[in-house]
């Protein structure tokens, strides 16, 4: 077999568009002996599985957990993290069979994956005379008649936050045995709990603490996280208690090469590059030809399918090739997923093309190469995907292929930024009032609040007083009694702020529901005449029933997709802090956002040409959230030597670029942030700013303000850090624009010239220059 680095080197040699080749040195294992106190039956069970000593970090984690200290373990893929929590849990159960543990995984699939492993270990322990240790999953798939058995017999319950929220906590008396004896709570994939989901989890854990207190238990938390900047802080924010950090990885690592590839520019004037998907196909094919097992990460379900098709086509002639190249994404049936995972472990599957579904810790063994089609959006996710390749010994390679999105272009042209910077911070805001209120209701249902009880950092007595005004609770006997017949957890969805959503009904042949969209993005993706895409199949929206929360779609065959144009108006409600003087001042605070989808554009596949547009009249959506904003003073604007139309294009281009750099600085998805420029229309789904053809160009105000706001009601905590990062934001935006090779704007910096106007890039650059000069002078 060819070593991965030879193939990587070859690709590097052949290709002038490799912007970085980084060698990551191998590292030997650091071992420690089993602690003497570790139950001998557990030690024996581990030995029968070929584990006769521990990696350093495992020993560390076990010591913390057994000493009763909350611990967060940061380890790369394939470093034996599950033993870090399984060992102390099983040891404690062996010591005292009444011990109970609760494991939380972000998805049901991960719980299943862990169940198999834990089962095996529990069996070995049984063979070693350790008795019967009950290990069960408890989630939406658990049959009703099996649930009682789980409650009675499980020593370890494997579940997810959604089930804990709606199925376990509200019924805690039935789980009295679990809560009375709860010694450990394990939170796997801690880094997945950021933003809205993390803020919900933090509140669910607050509720868990209340229930545990009621039953007299005080569990130790063991969390495992992929590499992020602030694992300990995240764990402490989520759990609300101090944590010990275990981050000295003792597992061995093989040598790894990391390549950055920027597809060649094919139209220098318009800044159009060769398709990154085609480039990814070429690179993956090179590896496959050399017999290396590869995983290819695509950014969306659609591109996953496209790449799978491409790669299968490329291997057309080879007999049996169809089975060695597989796609993998959410939406595949569990059986098929298990089959693919097994194929990867046995080596029968040589290449898998996946969405981020395989980024989380599903066991697929270690592969030779990881190819990323497009920047995964964060440094942490990039390392995680890269970590899918690489055995404990031997060489491996990771390849990042940039798309033309600004964030990709920034990263690919600044490899030193990527390799030098710490990964992102995972932010949560457990005291987001919208989220907090929902969970206070759930908590009040579970256990009445007492008149002197605290919850989170807000004054919960004030919250309860407001809830009492509306009849949710009532103060009686010195406690707050829940006063509704309904069951509050049912109305709270953890994966968004509001549980309201739109369903998509396909009317091509009868009526069937084919998808759903959350409330906020409904109008932008499901307006009439919008093209809705699911599993590569195109549908056109025929009717959008806003009040009924439904969109009726029909299958179509067309060569374009649609992109909504959203008019957003932001009003400042409250300024929390401001900085900067004179020409440019920046702030963060609370804002009121009114947005309305006013039209849409039709954009041709592959060429991204704008081939038409339409107007829409949809109801407004409103929210209160938090925002960062930058105000460009009239004096500053006056010093820019361009006419008003060009100035407008420049401000739009600047905003566009800033808005694309911001997610790089915060650890967040692109659509976690919203953008508004003083009421200029902004195109929603795409990352392209600017006015569009067929729309009347709006006038720029004399003091334009660029708002980058948290795209969730109540805010999720991005605005304050972004405010703190203002100088970095401006500097990085300037690098992005000035270092872009295009002549006058392209999708990778200020937006394509056709959309923004000929001088957008020049004006934006000039604005940034003035902004930085003003900062330097101040």
């Amino acid at each position, binding site marked *: 077999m060819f070593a991965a680095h030879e193939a990587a080197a070859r690709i590097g040699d052949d290709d002038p568009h490799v912007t970085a080749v980084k060698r990551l040195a191998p590292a030997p294992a650091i071992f420690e002996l089993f602690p003497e106190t570790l139950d001998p039956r557990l030690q024996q069970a581990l030995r029968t599985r070929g584990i006769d000593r521990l990696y350093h970090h495992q020993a560390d984690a076990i010591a913390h957990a057994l000493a009763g200290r909350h611990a967060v373990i940061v380890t790369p893929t394939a470093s034996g993290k599950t033993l870090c929590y399984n060992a102390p849990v099983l040891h404690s159960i062996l010591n005292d069979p009444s011990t109970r543990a609760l494991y939380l995984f972000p998805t049901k699939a991960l719980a299943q994956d862990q169940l198999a492993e834990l089962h095996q270990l529990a069996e070995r322990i049984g063979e070693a005379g350790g008795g019967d240790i009950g290990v069960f999953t408890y989630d939406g798939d658990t049959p009703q008649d099996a649930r009682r058995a789980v409650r009675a017999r499980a020593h370890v319950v494997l579940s997810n936050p959604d089930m804990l929220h709606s199925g376990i906590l509200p019924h805690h008396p039935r789980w009295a045995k679990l809560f009375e004896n709860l010694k450990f709570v394990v939170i796997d994939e801690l880094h997945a709990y950021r933003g809205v989901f993390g803020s919900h989890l933090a509140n669910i854990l607050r509720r868990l603490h209340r229930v545990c207190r009621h039953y007299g238990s005080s569990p130790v938390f063991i969390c495992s996280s992929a590499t992020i900047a602030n694992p300990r802080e995240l764990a402490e924010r989520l759990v609300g208690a101090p944590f010990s950090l275990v981050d000295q990885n003792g597992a061995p690592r093989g040598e790894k090469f990391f390549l950055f590839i920027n597809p060649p520019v094919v139209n220098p004037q318009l800044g159009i590059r060769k398709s990154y998907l085609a480039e990814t196909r070429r690179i993956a094919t090179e590896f496959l030809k050399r017999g290396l097992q590869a995983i290819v990460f695509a950014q969306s379900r659609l591109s996953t399918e496209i790449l799978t098709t491409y790669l299968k086509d490329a291997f057309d002639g080879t007999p049996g090739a169809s089975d060695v190249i597989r796609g993998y994404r959410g939406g595949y049936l569990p059986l098929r997923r298990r089959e693919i995972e097994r194929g990867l472990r046995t080596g029968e599957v040589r290449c898998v093309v996946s969405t981020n579904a395989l980024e989380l810790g599903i066991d697929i063994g270690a592969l030779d190469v990881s190819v990323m089609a497009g920047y995964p959006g964060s440094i942490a996710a990039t390392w995680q995907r890269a970590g899918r390749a690489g055995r404990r010994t031997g060489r491996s390679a990771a390849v990042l292929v940039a798309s033309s999105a600004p964030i990709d272009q920034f990263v690919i042209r600044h490899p030193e930024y990527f390799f030098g910077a710490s990964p992102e911070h995972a932010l949560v805001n457990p005291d987001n*009032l919208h989220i907090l*209120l929902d969970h206070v209701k759930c908590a009040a249902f579970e256990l009445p609040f007492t008149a002197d009880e605290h919850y989170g950092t807000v004054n919960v007595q004030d919250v309860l007083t407001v809830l009492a005004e509306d009849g949710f609770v*009532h103060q009686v006997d010195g406690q707050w009694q829940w006063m509704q017949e309904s069951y509050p957890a049912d109305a709270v969805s953890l994966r968004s702020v509001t549980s309201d959503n739109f369903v998509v009904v396909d009317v091509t042949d009868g009526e069937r529901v084919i998808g759903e969209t959350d409330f906020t993005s409904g109008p932008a993706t499901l307006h009439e005449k919008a093209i809705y895409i699911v599993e590569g199949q195109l549908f056109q929206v025929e009717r959008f029933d806003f009040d009924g929360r439904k969109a009726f779609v029909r299958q179509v065959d067309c060569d374009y997709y649609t992109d909504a144009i959203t008019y957003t108006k932001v009003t400042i409600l409250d300024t929390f802090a401001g900085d900067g003087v004179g020409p440019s001042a920046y702030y963060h605070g609370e804002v009121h956002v009114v947005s309305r989808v006013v039209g849409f554009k039709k954009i041709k596949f592959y060429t991204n040409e704008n081939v038409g547009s339409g107007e829409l009249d949809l109801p407004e959506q409103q929210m209160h959230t938090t925002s960062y904003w930058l105000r460009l003073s009239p004096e500053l604007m006056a010093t820019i030597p361009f006419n008003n139309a060009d100035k407008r294009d420049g401000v739009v281009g600047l905003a566009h670029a800033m808005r694309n750099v911001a997610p790089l600085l915060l650890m967040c998805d692109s659509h976690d942030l919203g953008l508004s420029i003083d009421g200029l229309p902004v195109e929603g789904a795409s990352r392209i700013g600017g006015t569009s053809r067929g729309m009347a160009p709006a006038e720029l105000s004399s003091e334009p303000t660029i708002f980058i706001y948290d795209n969730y009601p109540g805010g999720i905590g991005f605005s304050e850090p972004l405010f703190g990062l203002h100088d970095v934001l401006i500097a990085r935006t300037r690098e992005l624009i000035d270092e872009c090779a295009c002549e006058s704007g392209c999708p990778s910096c200020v937006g394509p010239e056709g959309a923004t106007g000929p001088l957008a890039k020049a004006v934006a650059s000039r604005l940034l220059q003035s902004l930085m000069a003003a900062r330097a002078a101040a």
Partner: protein
Amino acid sequence: MRDLTSRLREIVRQKPPGAQPPARELTYVPDGSDAAHEAASRLGGRLHRAGHSHCVVLDRRWDAGDWYGRKQVATLELESDAPLGLFDRRLSLQSDWSSRIVFFDIETTGLSGGAGTLAFLAGCGWFEDGGFHVRQFFLVGPAGERALLDALTEIFQSASLLVTYNGRTFDVPTMDTRWAFHRSESPTAVPHFDMLPPARRLWSDAPAGCSLSALEREVLGVYRLRDVPGLEIPSRYFQFLRTGNPAVVDGVIEHNRHDLLSLAALTAHAVWLAREGPDACREASERAGLGRLYENAGDADRAAYAYKLAADSGGPEVRRTALSRLAVLLRRQDRHQESAAAWQSVLELAPRETGALGPLDRRAALALAIHHEHRARNLDLAREYATTLRSESTGRARQDAEYRLRRLERKRTSRGARKDLGFRELDLDYG
């Protein structure tokens, strides 16, 4: 910064859209035991204490000579050898209920269950000196729950049997949750007789359904005046908590009390019917119901007798139902001829005005097609029934009918050439 309360108000008011308007009432904050005392005296009860917790205890008695519907209270008491095993096999091991039988019913703040659903009223009823005694425990506030549970434990520990209506799925699990909430052992592991399943068997044809209030009208002839509908109960209790006015829950307490007496009366009536047999029934549908009860208890002979009586006396639909049950029962006893005759009658009694066959008729036709093919060996008749089935069925049943017809055709052409044993078992599991 804008103040927290106004921001909270904004969020609470805006969702869920169109939610219930705020309940604005005079707010009343009960003040520990004084409030409990006052509520107890206004409701006409006394206080029960356990530690710092108190609940209101209300006693009420119906004397032996009082009438309840068509019966006198004294006649409602179950004898110690009541054949409850006929109703619920789990109770057949025990035949002496001489110590206390407790009727039990609760009122709650919601039906969805979970830790936040409170049983604010627990009613227990038993017979004493010929009369019916009801003792209810009422929560003036949630802090009284300990006292309520404490009092109930005492009653449950002295009970030989609990009788409920839907208690297996609702009342007992709800109370188990309350005990678990207070981290106490639940005393509900008493033999338990849930009257709902046998009531469904006996009176499934009751026009207003099998709710306790429907059956007390239909079966017991009891009409309640100014009863509080079940749906209103939680909101009445919430109103009481807000206002402290016991008048709003008077009706709920009365409702619970009547439920208990009705449950006792219904149980007594069911036991009496089961003892007396179908001749004592007033209606044919009740006879058929009794048949189902006996059948479920494994008494096929009495079941067959009840079905026959029902088939001889009722309107066509009752007769058809009884005949179909009888037919199945007879077939299980290998009385194939009689079974076929019963199915035949089902078809003959079919309403003539509608052309299409109902589900019962299709079952009859299928049973007869099987009977004539495999037992009576009358292939012509079998083909007639199968043809009817084919034209009256859709989907899977139609395919089966077609398959049957093809097989019958083969048999007719090769009659005597081969035995048809090979096909027999295909139909045997049909019942």
